[in-house]
């Protein structure tokens, strides 16, 4: 076999964030002149791997060899100077500079005393021409659409003449034509001997562009496939991505809920994130929201909770028209949100459990001026007991709790309300198994007693499969499929999420 030189070899990489293990034992090899695809479900550790290679995170264990030499970068800049460029998922552009200034940012060259702007523009022009010839490089970046921004981001990485280029979900924001020219550019780079790591949720893209792929699952690589040798079999790849979930799948009754409609949403629109989202939620139902990460699920949950004054929709709760333009309106109508990022959106970290749990009551108009402390402390103790929150007492600041118990506090905020619709945004993210079970047990119990209905968004398909009665798949801000009953299984979910287009 005429294998080209190994540009990068990472072995036994381990990384955890708090109590959550992102990578347990991950290996990756990239060769010069080849495009290596990284595949895996949400949260399988692909992005963490890329970030460890470029020094955004440092690995707890393991070795990375670059061109045969062991390296350990402390920040992306050191990696860049060594010829490793990464296109970040969250854009690293400066919105107030124009396109060419962004492309050469950090790499400016002087001509005499001053910056060589003419040279920089020509240099940028040449790169942008390959990717998107129509783009005016004198446009400010904040005037560009998301796809164009992504192109500029890629151009910025290419302009540094990297030897190893890491593209983390570069196509998520791109249109088909833009993807095509990106692929052309990638092929041209590979011909020059550059090694590329390519991450994408879209299977067909990976199959089209990559020479070989590595599949990640639960923080470890489970398969390496050389397309030239092993052939391209999408079913097999999906099998690797989903793994042995069939065996591990827990017993689940396919419930068909046929109660009356609790919540009816028609034509929910918000900016570019949500387009004409319509659905119905029945009484006593757990409605799942799935799909690839970042397809508008997060925004949908926030919009239903009234976080976006700019969102428009016709919403009916129990046949009554309601407005969802303020969180207070949603709460008054018994629609309660457990937000996805509990630290940023859900908790007052330095404040006590007690304050956190009673806080939503303060927004109610019938709340007296002086908080009835005794009554509330009793209620608070009730919440701690029914969710089995592990803590010394209710006056401990919540940042002394573990992730799972913190999440329970966020759910506990709504426990003393008569919740009609509970919105759960990724409730098990960064939560240990025990706490996760406690949480879901409690919620499923409430639902079974017909006390409330739930809309559940989870980045982990396993949770959706286990708990949902119906599942909506979202793609680019729209609902593209509704799965019911037997259709709610891993293969169908992954396939519907990925095979759109």
């Amino acid at each position, binding site marked *: 076999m005429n294998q080209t030189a190994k540009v990068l070899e990472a072995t036994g990489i381990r990384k955890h964030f708090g109590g959550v293990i992102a990578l347990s034992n991950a290996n990756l090899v990239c060769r010069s002149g080849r495009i290596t695809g990284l595949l895996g479900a949400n949260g399988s550790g692909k992005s963490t791997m890329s970030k460890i290679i470029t020094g955004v995170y440092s690995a707890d264990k393991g070795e990375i060899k670059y061109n045969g030499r062991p390296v350990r970068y402390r920040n992306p800049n050191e990696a860049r100077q060594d010829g490793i460029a990464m296109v970040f998922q969250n854009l690293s552009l400066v919105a107030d500079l124009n396109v060419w200034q962004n492309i050469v940012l950090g790499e400016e060259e002087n001509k005499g005393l001053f910056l060589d702007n003419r040279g920089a523009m020509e240099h940028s022009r040449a790169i942008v021409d390959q990717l998107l010839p129509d783009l005016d490089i004198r446009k400010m970046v904040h005037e560009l659409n998301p796809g164009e921004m992504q192109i500029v981001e890629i151009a910025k990485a290419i302009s540094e003449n990297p030897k190893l280029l890491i593209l983390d979900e570069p196509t998520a924001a791109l249109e088909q034509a833009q993807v095509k020219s990106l692929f052309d550019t990638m092929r041209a780079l590979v011909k020059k001997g550059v090694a590329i790591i390519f991450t994408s949720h879209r299977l067909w893209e990976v199959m089209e562009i990559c020479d070989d792929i590595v599949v990640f699952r639960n923080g470890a690589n489970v398969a390496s496939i050389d397309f030239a040798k092993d052939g391209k079999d999408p079913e097999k790849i999906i099998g690797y991505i989903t793994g042995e979930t069939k065996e591990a799948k827990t017993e689940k009754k396919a419930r068909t809920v046929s109660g009356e409609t609790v919540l009816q949403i028609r034509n929910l629109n918000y900016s570019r994130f949500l387009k004409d989202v319509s659905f119905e939620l029945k009484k006593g139902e757990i409605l799942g929201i799935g799909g690839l990460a970042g397809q508008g699920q997060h925004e949908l949950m926030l919009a239903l909770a009234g976080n976006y004054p700019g969102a428009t929709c016709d919403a009916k709760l129990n046949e009554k028209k309601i407005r969802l333009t303020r969180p207070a309106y949603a709460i008054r109508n018994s629609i309660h949100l457990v937000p996805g990022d509990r630290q940023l*959106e859900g*908790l007052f970290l*330095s404040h006590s459990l007690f304050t956190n749990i*009673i*806080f939503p009551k303060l927004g109610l108009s019938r709340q007296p001026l002086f908080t009835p402390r005794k009554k509330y402390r009793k209620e608070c103790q009730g919440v701690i007991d029914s969710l089995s929150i592990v803590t010394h007492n209710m006056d401990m600041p919540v940042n002394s709790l573990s992730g799972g118990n913190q999440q329970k506090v966020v759910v506990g905020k709504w426990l003393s309300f008569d919740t009609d619709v509970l919105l759960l945004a990724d409730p098990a993210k960064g939560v240990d198994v025990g706490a996760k079970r406690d949480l879901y047990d409690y919620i499923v119990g409430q639902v079974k007693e017909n006390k409330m209905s739930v809309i559940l968004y989870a980045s982990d398909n396993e949770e959706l499969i286990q708990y949902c009665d119906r599942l909506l798949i979202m793609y680019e801000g729209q609902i593209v499929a509704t799965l019911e009953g037997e259709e709610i299984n891993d293969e169908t979910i992954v396939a519907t999420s990925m095979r759109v287009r």
Partner: protein
Amino acid sequence: MSTRSMTNFQDSAAYKIIDRHKKLIIAFLLIVFLFVIGEFTVETFLTLSQVLLTLKLASFIALFALCQMIAIAGGGSGLDLSVGYMATITAVFTAAIMEGRNSHLGVAVLAALGLGLVVGLINGTLTAYLRLPPLVVTLAMANILQGVINVYTAGKNITGRPSPVLQTMAAKSTGIFPNIVFLLLIITPIVMILLYKTKLGLKLFGSGANETAAYLSGVNVKLVRCTSYIISSTLASIIGLLLLGNMGIAFKDMGSNYVMPSIAAVVVGGVSLTGGDGNYIGVILGAIFLQTLTNLLVALGWGDAGKWTGFGIVLFALLILYLSNRRKR
């Protein structure tokens, strides 16, 4: 869970309690430190009358610092630089209303409340709803108030006198203890209850601690912040009455010298300038520290210059200690 990890947890909990009051302890140690230095460098630094005078003067700083604390607590990098001239303008107008008569005290208080309400509403609207930087808005407001004072006092020396009741409250002593200290002792628990036990206080701290979480919990964060400026201004206005009572006359710059100390006291007292946190006891300690520092510098013959330099350096150093956000990776 093993017993060992349980004890570890207890250890960390105890540590956290100390950690939580770390800033209070620092403030207290700073005061002790100053008294020790003062005792060694200046004669008769630690006498009873000196301490009582310090307490009296520190009370005014502490009252102004309460305004700051409330403006800061709501978050959004809140601060109120207009409190100094707010107090002055009230003093100037109410002195003219009272003219030394107790009978007009009620009208004067009403006028003070009204003035505070209007100014606070403007400050609050501009910062909370228009999202302008509070420091810039309130500094501009201070300018406007100063302008109004200039217009009103043009060509006059004294605009009137406070009512005797006010003078008794602010300037006189009962036995050896200044009355203003009693007032502070009454105000402190009220403030603590309002801030920590009522829904307004909890909403205020919540909005400062995590704006998004508060908003998603149904709190109207903008309204809460706007209200905090109204309270701050109204309070400053009431302080203006006391200041007038203490001084006996109203003059142009009577309040403006308290702005810097009020902010420094809040920082020394361990209130997080990002909001959502704060202990008024610490703020009072901060005020005592600053007044002691002033006494020491004055006793050493460094006067105003030394006072401002000292305040500036203390504030600068504590800001770096408490707020530094250095990049680490």
